[in-house]
């Protein structure tokens, strides 16, 4: 039996991944409570995608443990995999299928029966505004359409924990608004969402808790209010009435080593 509500939705302890001499993720420990919308931030190459791959079973950790819904999680934890949905970095689509065919395939891979898969496929295609494209092969979809389809595939089995790696990349503003509403709806119904994105405005609007990773190490973890108060003293002018934006918080935390001012302008650019 899977753990009931009350335990953590996601828990890592000392999570580490090495690629030869390079340590991409080092000793990362955090927990995400059930029903939390959790933002996982970091500069490029900080280790976000590596972490999400380990959390979803796509990559084996070199060290450390992962628990999902209170159970140890690994590539062979098939029962647990049925409880999670993922939009991975590469979207995991099948180019030679149409969108309905792909959703049928995914639904059945997650153990849904045909009738349920059919019903949810139709609903999802309507919701994602892909119903008119049902004869088109996925390979002919635009990037944004593919993102929407990947998200549809991630939720078709009604997961309790949803991992989203850059879900809003390439999605137009209308679709992004729709997706945000859908994700918030899932949170209201008790699902947990683990989100990585570079769009800090989205994280600020949606997420209640945030963790920041830089150079493979977790450098901040907590609610946005906690992070704000934590860095307030280090940001000039933040002590007064003005609320720090997440971007300012982020830059304050990783900026020192992650984003230094260029020493000089590029000589050949006007």
């Amino acid at each position: 039996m899977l753990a009931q509500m009350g335990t953590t939705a996601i828990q890592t302890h000392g999570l580490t991944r090495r690629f030869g001499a390079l340590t991409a993720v080092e000793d990362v420990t955090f927990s995400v409570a059930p029903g939390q919308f959790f933002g996982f931030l970091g500069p490029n190459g900080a280790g976000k995608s590596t972490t999400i791959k380990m959390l979803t079973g796509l990559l084996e950790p070199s060290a450390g443990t992962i628990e999902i819904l209170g159970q140890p999680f690994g590539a062979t934890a098939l029962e647990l995999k049925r409880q999670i949905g993922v939009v991975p970095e590469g979207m995991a689509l099948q180019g030679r299928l149409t969108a309905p065919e792909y959703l049928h395939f995914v639904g059945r891979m997650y153990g849904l029966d045909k009738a349920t898969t059919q019903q949810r496929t139709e609903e999802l295609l309507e919701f994602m505004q892909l119903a008119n494209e049902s004869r088109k092969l996925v390979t002919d979809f635009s990037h944004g359409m593919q993102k929407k389809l990947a998200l549809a595939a991630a939720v078709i089995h009604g997961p309790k924990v949803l991992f989203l790696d850059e879900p809003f990349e390439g999605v137009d503003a209308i679709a992004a608004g729709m997706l945000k509403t859908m994700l918030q709806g899932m949170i209201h119904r008790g699902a947990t969402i683990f989100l990585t994105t570079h769009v800090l405005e989205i994280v600020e609007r949606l997420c209640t808790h945030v963790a920041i990773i830089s150079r493979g190490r977790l450098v901040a973890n907590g609610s946005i209010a906690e992070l704000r108060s934590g860095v307030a003293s280090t940001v000039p002018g933040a002590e007064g009435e003005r609320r720090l934006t997440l971007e300012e918080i982020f830059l304050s935390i990783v900026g020192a080593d992650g984003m230094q001012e260029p020493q000089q302008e590029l000589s050949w650019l006007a």
Partner: protein
Amino acid sequence: MAGVGGAGVNGAGLAGPGAGPQEPAGPKGLSGGGERPLETGVFGTLARGQYAALIRLRWHMFTNELRFRKGALELGARTFGYMLYGFTGLMIGAGAGAWAYILVSSQQWRFLPIVFWIGFLIWQMVPVMLASFQEQFDLSILLRFPVGFKSFFLLYAFFGLSDVSTILGGLCCAGIWVGVTLALPHLFLWTTAALGVFAVFNIFLVRAIFAWIDRWLSQRKTREILMAAFMVLALSAQLLNPALHNFPGRSGSHASRHARPQEVQRIELEYSPWLRTANEIQKWLPPGLAAASIREVAEQNPGAALGRLGLLGVYFLAAGLVLAARLKAEYRGENLGHSPKQSKRAARRVRYPGKESTSESRSEFASETTSAEAGKAWSGAGWLGTGTGPITAVMEKELRTLMRSIPQMYVLGAPLLMVFVFGSMFRSNAGGGNVYPLALPICMAYSILGFSQLFSNNLGTEGGGIQLIFLSPTPVRTVLLAKNLFHALLFGVDVLLAGILVSLRLGAPDSAVLTGTIAWLLFALPINLAVGNLFSLTMPYRVNPGRLTRQRGSQANALLSLLAQLAVLVVGGAVFLLCWHVDNLWLATPIFLALAGGAFYVWIRVLRNSDGMANRRRDVLIATMAKTD
């Protein structure tokens, strides 16, 4: 509009007004070279720099791959492959040269075009057979750089001159050149010119054909038309059958050889109107023109020779124009997909049970159906018999992918057609038309050759979708089992069809041979599946099922799977020959059944271990399948 009309997407739009495709240098300071003006044109400073950069890029890609064990294996396999192609090409070249020498020295000029036609067919047909095994560099990546169209065209036409078709076709041409020159040395220069134009024509034509096929395969409507055309062609090829069936003189028997002149005479009489028409037509086609131009020079008709060569040159230009037309569209940044349509139903309200849908209410449906329900459904829907569950899902997906992949269907179907067309070779003309006793297993072995790639790279068409296999609660072994079952089903249909075709051509087989062949197939299938699963997990490569060219093949996988298939054939051949030698073909059945039992056990063991293997290698598998470069 120079930036759009002339240069399109390649970045030349930066050049500002007046900059055409050949003037891709940007504004001062952005031109890369900086202050000095760049020579434009196909061999200008910029183009030469780009060619050099491309060569360096290929070199770096090559050396970087050697950093990995797989890369070293690939290098070994590629070296072996080129040696094999080179050897085959030399054999073909030697054969073509000897034949050309005999024909020219004996003044049998009317048969010389046949040698050229063989070279032409090798050049144009081999890529279709080997396209998916070859690694081909996709030059469309260059379009984001300021590459002039002429440079792009030149690169496309001549990049990859080391591919198999060029090696085989080129060596065939070289053989003809040597043969003709040895027979009539004074034709040296003219033969060089004629064969040179013929070779360049072939290079342009094969690239034009593949560029257009890739274009047609990329859109649904043209894909379906191409599919229909392919089927018509395949059926038309069967018309060759009666002609081949009645073609005498195939047997190498003494009586047959003795009767050959009379038979040739009879054929000429019987088929003379058809042959005459065919000859008249082929004279005006490139292989006929190349052969005829050499003949005209030998017969002291320089004007006619020049005319023929000129016409061959026109064909070369036509092939170049056809290729240019395709590449121009690609260069301008065409969208091969369907143009995005405005969703007519975007604003339509969707009615859900019990409520009018709004974006708010719709957003919640995903959570209404919980994973607990999925689990409930899962427990009762796991196996094939229910018509649902992951096994049938994977099989259904495989079927859909196959049905939309003409190259894959061709690879599977072509051997069947060849079995039907050439099956009668196993019937002897002498001795009352006796059938070679082992014709059935030989035809069967040939008909299953097309499965080699399907078996040994069964994850190849997954692409980025392979991640789903690791994300979903379906074990990898279940996915492999489903794929194996689907391939076994295809295999069964294929051998059944092959059996029917062979029976139609040669009559009902001997019962001992039939049961022996079935037993051999029962051995061949599981061992191929087992080896295929191992290769698929250890040396996979991404296959774009909608493309014939620009694939990233794996020579190591191709070579090793070929060797595995060869081993299965050798075992089959050895057992059959042994049993034939002891004059008891019935003996083959129990031997093969015993081997089949062992093969089945190996297959089960490999399947059982596949989860562990796949999970250990999942990052490599995902990286290999998901990469798009």
